[in-house]
């Protein structure tokens, strides 16, 4: 058993691309935890990155480009389209997105079109359009799925939950950059993935993956736990509270 595992491990190591002459990328988030309390109205997280080169690294004629992709907790989303049926407008067709991110932000140092080829963008899911139109994002219905993908993007963008900022990454020196991930208040609690990709001359040089989580604290957390784990008690408490408020009001406003 152990031997098989060890062999498998060696095979995997051999398959993994080993950058021979590449740069290495070091990234860090300003915080790995966003705490939600009662006066939370959204926040932002800073990403810092440094590109490390050693003696063997070839010098590059073109500057570095950075793409930062942030994905929030997954949701099962259904997009429906209203169509005319006689005098009525009814929901007819629908398209399911079983693992769509609730929040999706792409921050880049240049417009994605200028960073790399369309082929690579689609294959490596670089840029918002590439993610939305990726084959595994929803089931393919030979073109019929396209308006639904666009609609999901449009509606989520309107809420500020899907966004692309082509000037979102700023280089402080040629090898050090920073970016700010804007988190609107409606971005849901959960685990967020931050993927930083370094490119130069349309080629991917390095990639890092870091995480942060958004959690409810204190009272907000206790309410969430009570509603989930003691739902009968929670429901009964709310009902009693409502009755109590109603009774109190009738006493206050009593006219004798």
């Amino acid at each position, binding site marked *: 058993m152990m031997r098989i595992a060890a062999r498998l491990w060696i095979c995997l190591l051999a398959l993994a691309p080993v950058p021979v002459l590449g740069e290495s990328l070091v990234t860090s988030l300003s915080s790995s935890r966003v705490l939600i309390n009662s006066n*939370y109205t959204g926040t932002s997280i800073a990403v810092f990155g440094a590109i490390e080169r050693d003696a063997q690294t070839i010098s590059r004629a073109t500057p570095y480009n950075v793409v930062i992709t942030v994905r929030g907790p997954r*949701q099962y989303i259904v997009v429906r*389209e209203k169509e005319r049926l006689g005098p009525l*407008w009814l929901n007819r067709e629908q398209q399911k997105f079983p693992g769509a991110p609730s929040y999706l932000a792409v921050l880049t140092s240049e417009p994605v079109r200028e960073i790399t080829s369309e082929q690579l963008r689609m294959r490596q899911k670089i840029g918002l359009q590439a993610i939305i139109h990726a084959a595994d994002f929803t089931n393919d219905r030979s073109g019929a799925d396209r*308006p639904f993908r666009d609609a999901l993007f449009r509606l989520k963008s309107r809420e500020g939950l899907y966004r692309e900022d082509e000037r979102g990454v700023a280089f402080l020196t040629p090898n050090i950059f920073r970016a700010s991930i804007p988190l609107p208040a409606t971005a849901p609690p959960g685990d967020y993935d931050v993927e930083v990709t370094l490119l130069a001359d349309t080629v991917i040089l390095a990639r890092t993956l870091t995480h942060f989580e958004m959690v409810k604290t204190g009272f*907000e957390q206790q309410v969430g736990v009570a509603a989930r784990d003691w739902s009968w008690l929670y*429901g009964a408490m709310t009902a009693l*509270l409502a009755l109590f*408020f109603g009774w109190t*009001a009738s006493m206050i406003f009593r006219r004798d």
Partner: protein
Amino acid sequence: MQIYLPIAEMPVSVLLILAMGAAVGFISGLFGIGGGFLMTPLLIFLGIPPAVAVATQSAQIVASSTTSALGALRRRALDLKLGSMLIAGGLIGSGLGVWFFAAARRAGQLDLVIVVSYVTLFTVVGSLMMRESIREFWVKRRGGAARPRRRGGDHAPYLGWPLRMRFPRSKLYASVIPILGFALFVGFAGALLGIGGGFIMVPALLYIFRVPTGVVVGTSQFQIVCTTLITLVLHAVANQAVDIVLAILLIVGGVFGAQFGARAGRNLRAEVFRFLLAILLLAVGLRFALELMIRPNEPFSITTEEVRA
């Protein structure tokens, strides 16, 4: 001032929610209806998830209806006996409504069933009341008696069916069969549409059963308290969608609004009362009809079925 809602998972403006609670509470107290059909669309419009909006506003209905019902009890304007009959019929109807809800969802036509039911119910009930109140108005202007006073023995034939019961406070001596049947229908529609059903109950008690206006509001509120209490707990258990912070804000706004509404209602003449309620119902019916008939700006809509942590 903003506050974060722990279950809806978003911040809202405290003052806005208080004001909304007060406005809907006023209408609720004025007409003796729950007001759920007004509050739910308002909350969804603010961006609160529909499941949370439907579940949480039932807490506000409980609170404001409790206040109104207690007030009515004190003024002896509540028929406990009739109210209990309505609740009994209503519970059976709710059960059937929940079952039909699931069946329509399986068939994939739940949205359609809900909007069409809204349009039909609101337009029919609203038009009937409108016609009645306009006719009354007309007769009064020409100097006739508003409505011939009800005399003993003067009633619709279905009230004389077997199993008659006396409801002294409502000045009613009627068969329980149409009362239970009617309550069953209201419970059915309520569960299907996520509403208390006060807006069907009030006109029906007024016109079909000829219960005095003063008693109608109190009795309807009593029935709403009991039905909505059960709905609230079921929502908390089944969907975990009751937001206690939002509920408290809505309740605080709502109880005050309901008090002023109830007081305004007492000073309102009966025919004006019916006329205003008719306008309210027709407006809501029209709004849903337009939603169904006008080409939408954005034909697409998204629903989040579940969140994966």
